[in-house]
């Protein structure tokens, strides 16, 4: 088989390509949200799609997240495959009731008569000087809800393959896009020049259709002494810190938080004997808590040290102290020191 034709894309271009491919492939796929149509999205994720596929397939909505998701649930129940966009994850809360009470339970409540094949896309995470209303990481609110899948890509290649798989999934998926790395793989060293995606192997993206199955983690880098579980922007931060300090760490990009690829995690932690969880989201009841719990359940007698969590603080996302809040290189290095001493 010939190699598929690939093109260097940043994450926005990869997501745009996924939506384009699915609009063309499946007439039931519709895209809606604030400024996604005529304007092409505030981050340009839907640029050109309305023009190409028409206003019935890609359209703008009023500024009502509850309405956007609620309409999505209705469309999905009647056979469409809606892909609503919530402009920032920070705005998703008005739609939470529709997601938790309707989308997540439709299949259960209707005894399998109705399903909800909806994918809610939403940029999330910090590191963009966005302050408390444009920087949040609310993923654990969704991983706590049974019936919703939660997906977070870390490269353009994964973003496209995972988004296509999410759209094709017959149950609701919340697809969080780490907006800090839309245009380049941020390393956490905010005072250094940002590298473009073109220098990263994850930017080679096939132009056509392909999918990456949900529920499969990716071992980004193999190592022997400590397993780092992370996702989104933090994959690149961890990678940079590990390289900077010469740590023999195994880095696992979860890609899908729920369903969780616990087998990959278990095998790695049993190998290394140490586990660190890194996420931007606040610490208490964060997804790291779930990871730490499952790791100790499955790997307790292999652990050389307590599971270490490097996370955001239990505060609103600060504007002026963003780099203190962000679990960047300094805090990661300290955490590696601690876990390796035990």
């Amino acid at each position, binding site marked *: 088989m010939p190699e598929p034709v690939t093109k260097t894309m940043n994450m926005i271009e990869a997501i745009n390509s996924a939506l384009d491919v699915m609009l063309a492939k499946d007439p039931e796929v519709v895209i809606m949200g604030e400024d996604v149509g005529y304007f092409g999205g505030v981050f340009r994720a839907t640029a050109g799609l309305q023009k190409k596929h028409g206003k019935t397939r890609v359209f703008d909505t009023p500024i009502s997240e509850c309405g956007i998701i609620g309409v999505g649930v209705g469309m999905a129940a009647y056979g469409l495959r809606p892909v609503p966009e919530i402009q920032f994850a920070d705005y998703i809360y008005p739609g939470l009731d529709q997601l938790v009470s309707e989308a997540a339970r439709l299949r259960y409540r209707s005894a399998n008569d109705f399903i909800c094949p909806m994918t809610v896309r939403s940029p999330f995470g910090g590191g963009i000087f966005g302050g408390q209303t444009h920087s949040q990481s609310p993923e654990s609110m969704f991983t706590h809800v049974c019936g919703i899948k939660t997906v977070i890509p870390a490269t353009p290649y994964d973003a496209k393959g995972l988004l296509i798989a999410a759209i094709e999934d017959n149950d609701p998926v919340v697809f969080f896009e780490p907006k800090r790395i839309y245009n380049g793989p941020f390393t956490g060293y905010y005072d250094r020049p940002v590298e473009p995606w073109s220098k990263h192997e994850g930017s080679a993206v096939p132009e056509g259709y392909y999918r990456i199955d949900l529920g499969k983690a990716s071992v980004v880098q193999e190592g022997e002494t400590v397993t780092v579980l992370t996702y989104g922007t933090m994959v690149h931060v961890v990678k940079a810190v590990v390289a900077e300090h010469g740590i023999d760490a195994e880095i696992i990009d979860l890609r899908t938080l729920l369903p969780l690829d616990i087998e990959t995690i278990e095998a790695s932690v049993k190998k290394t*004997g140490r586990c660190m969880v890194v996420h931007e989201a606040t610490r208490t009841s964060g997804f790291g808590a779930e990871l730490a719990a499952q790791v100790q359940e499955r790997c*307790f*007698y*292999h*652990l*050389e*040290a307590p599971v270490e969590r490097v996370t955001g603080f239990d505060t609103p996302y600060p504007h002026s102290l963003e780099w203190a809040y962000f679990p960047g290189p300094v805090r990661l290095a300290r955490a590696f020191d601690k876990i390796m001493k*035990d």
Partner: protein
Amino acid sequence: MPKFTFNLPDIGEGIAEAEIVAWHVKVGDNISEDQPLADMMTDKATVEMESPVSGVVTKVAGEAGDVIAIGAMLVEIEVAGDASTEASDAIKSAAEPTLAAVVEDENPHAPEAVAVAELIPAAVAPAPLQPAIPADTAANKFTASPAVRQRAKDLGVDLTDVKAAGGHIRHADLDAFLTYGTQMGYRPAHANMRREDEAVKVIGMRRRIADNMAASKRHIPHFTYVEEIDVTAIEAMRADLNANRGAKPKLTMLPMLIVAICKTIPQFPMINARFDDEAGVVTRHGAVHLGMATQTDAGLMVPVIRDAQDRNIWQLATEITRLAEAARSGSAKSEELSGSTLTITSLGPLGGIATTPVINRPEVAIIGPNKIVERPMFVGDTIEARKLMNLSISCDHRVVDGWDAANYVQALKKIIETPVLLFAD
């Protein structure tokens, strides 16, 4: 300088070769006259070879386990003269520095360590990193990661015994314990319970035994017959004899059995015989030369009581003791270890309920008394405590029939159960 070649002399009747069992000298040794050279083993005995001359050993015939022909060179000796004294001095002076070096090297760090310890005044000595382990029950509390706990469990280590170099017990502390813990009686739970395999070279005496036993079983169709004998009366008689023995040796069951055997053998000449199966001739012997299977450190030996029929019970007891000691100390002479016509093998209290002894070829029978036990028995209409002993006999079925063996044992049984017959001629 003249050389003396010590050739292996003829150390037994009609022996063609002998095995080197142990060397007492090696090449370069300065030896004096009559100094032991090597232990040589023949079919019959182990003989110590002594040097007829003084000098320095320049050549030896081989190593332990090698078989040397009679008349072949065993040791070559450079005969003593003025030169040999020199050689001796040279060896001495060469050996001394080596010895000194070894002594010096034994504990090279000890003086240094002492010096360092003395140099640090107590006041400025750094506080120990390790918190003092209290002697009370708090010592039972320790912290360790789950992985360390699991490993300790797998190793069978009680972590309360392990000293922590830091705040927690770590793998390194556990590793250290595996070394010092053995002094505290620690043995790994799973590891090292199995002994290492060991290859033991079958040489010398053991090889001789192996060859003889294999030949016996290969050539002789054995059968074994076991009968129960009431030894209450003979045991009582033995107790009386021992109580009144004076300066005589203490009697065991064995001399009494031998007397019984000697008394009964004349009616059963087929039992006391040697079978030359190549010539096809069984020689039924008039005299009873009784082989006495004896366990020694080197293995099984069979010293022989000559003309047992002519010895009284006390003489037999003395001879049994003397021969057993000679066999065990390795001083038994060749003729004391050959020529038996019938063998008795007794394990005493270890005798078990029955044995199937292997015949000492070319003999045709071997008798094995088993252990004496007290059991309830019917005597007429009443039950009495009686002392009972099973007696085994293995015979060469080519020349001894079951009928013969059974009748012989019944005759033995009768005389043992009525011990007054032992002394009735």
